[in-house]
């Protein structure tokens, strides 16, 4: 049974956006223009957006799965007809689903999608998805420790942990805007690289395993 939230069902099912079809009669001809793989390939962006909004990796996983279901169903029902509109549709779906989750709306049945589990499990995971929360903490600390200057470390802690504004930090640490941006950029890039390395390690570790032995962690939060 595939489910979503009431809000997502309404927003993805009734709202009309540019590029979406008005009637079901157009569905057959236009659904072919969009493949479900197009949806899957855009999930990393959806996931990044949802994580940005929720700061909860497990909830992000669940809600991203909901977006996948909602959008695939919209394609099948012909409610999206142009590939150019797909990202915007997914964006709106993601936002509605997060808002609904925040309001703790009761889930309602969206419909059946038997191959959804396959779609979800076969997708290429993002580097961050490969990490557990304690691993993310360890990587973040490593990135912080790798910054050679104490001032840069203070900047990172002030910006990311204490939530101090850019202008105040620049004044406090006597940095120009350019210097500030460079430190943040360097840290962000290093974090991305660390996450990539972690993903590569995970892949290398799994290469020797038979596919049937691979763990499958993806599951619906409504199971």
């Amino acid at each position, binding site marked *: 049974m595939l489910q979503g939230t009431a809000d997502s069902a309404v927003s993805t099912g009734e709202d009309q956006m540019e590029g979406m079809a008005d009637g079901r009669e157009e569905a057959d001809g236009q659904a072919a223009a969009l493949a479900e793989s197009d949806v899957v390939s855009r999930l990393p962006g959806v996931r990044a957006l949802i994580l940005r909004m929720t700061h909860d990796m497990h909830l992000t996983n669940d809600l991203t799965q909901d977006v996948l279901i909602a959008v695939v169903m919209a394609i099948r029902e012909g409610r999206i007809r142009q590939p150019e509109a797909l990202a915007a549709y997914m964006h709106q779906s993601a936002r509605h689903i997060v808002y609904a989750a925040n309001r703790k709306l009761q889930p309602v049945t969206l419909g059946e999608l038997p191959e959804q589990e396959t779609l979800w499990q076969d997708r290429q995971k993002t580097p961050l998805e490969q990490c557990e929360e304690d691993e993310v903490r360890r990587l973040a600390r490593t990135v912080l420790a790798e910054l050679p*200057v104490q001032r840069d470390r203070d900047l990172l802690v002030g910006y990311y942990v204490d939530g101090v504004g850019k202008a105040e930090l620049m004044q406090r640490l006597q940095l120009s805007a350019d210097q500030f941006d460079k430190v943040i950029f360097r840290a962000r890039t290093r974090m991305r690289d660390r996450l990539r390395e972690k993903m590569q390690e995970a892949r290398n570790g799994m290469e020797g395993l038979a596919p049937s032995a691979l763990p499958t962690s993806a599951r619906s939060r409504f199971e």
Partner: protein
Amino acid sequence: MISALDNHLLRAYLDGEMDEATAEAFEVLMIERPQLAELVDADTALQMGLKEALATPTAVSVAMPTTASTASASADAPAATAPPEPARQPHRPRRRLIPLLAAASLLLAAGVGLGRLWLPQPPDLVSTTLLSVDRMRGSVTDVPKLRLPTSGQIVLSVPVAARPGCAPRVRIVQPGATLQTTVTPDEYGFANLSLDATRLALGKTDIVVDCDTTQLALYQVEFVR
């Protein structure tokens, strides 16, 4: 490939410098381009990871090395220098606790904030008015007029002649009230007295400098608005 423009947009988005419409447009672009999403993920992971890592005292000592040498050492072998992670907690119970903890934190923060508002906080700087009793600058026959503010602190600067073996005293004599204190004149021979302007009345006032029973000086001034 991340271009300079991409980086500019990314920075503006992550710094919250975009208006809502622009931010939404960037989010759509991010959905189209996984490379951008990867950097947004890295930023979010950095924020989440550091917040959680620095929430424990053991993490702080590692994450905030006090010298460059310790930082270099950590960079060389970060995994080795990192303290062992605490045992992972089950996610679901923790998530149920988060709203309670958040609510408690908010209440606490609000209470502390209100408490700070109610408690009198000393300001960093206080503006004062300097009133100088200096007969040298006017005619000896005129009574100098000193402009007294309606409120706030004033500093009254009074010439005090030094005399060996004597602790001079300054008295401000007004009808109905006399304010007095022992003073130590500065190297220029002035005693600077701080008091609230409301303690003084308008009109002519005698400022007496004496030592024990001996009057050393008498200055007559007039406080005016």
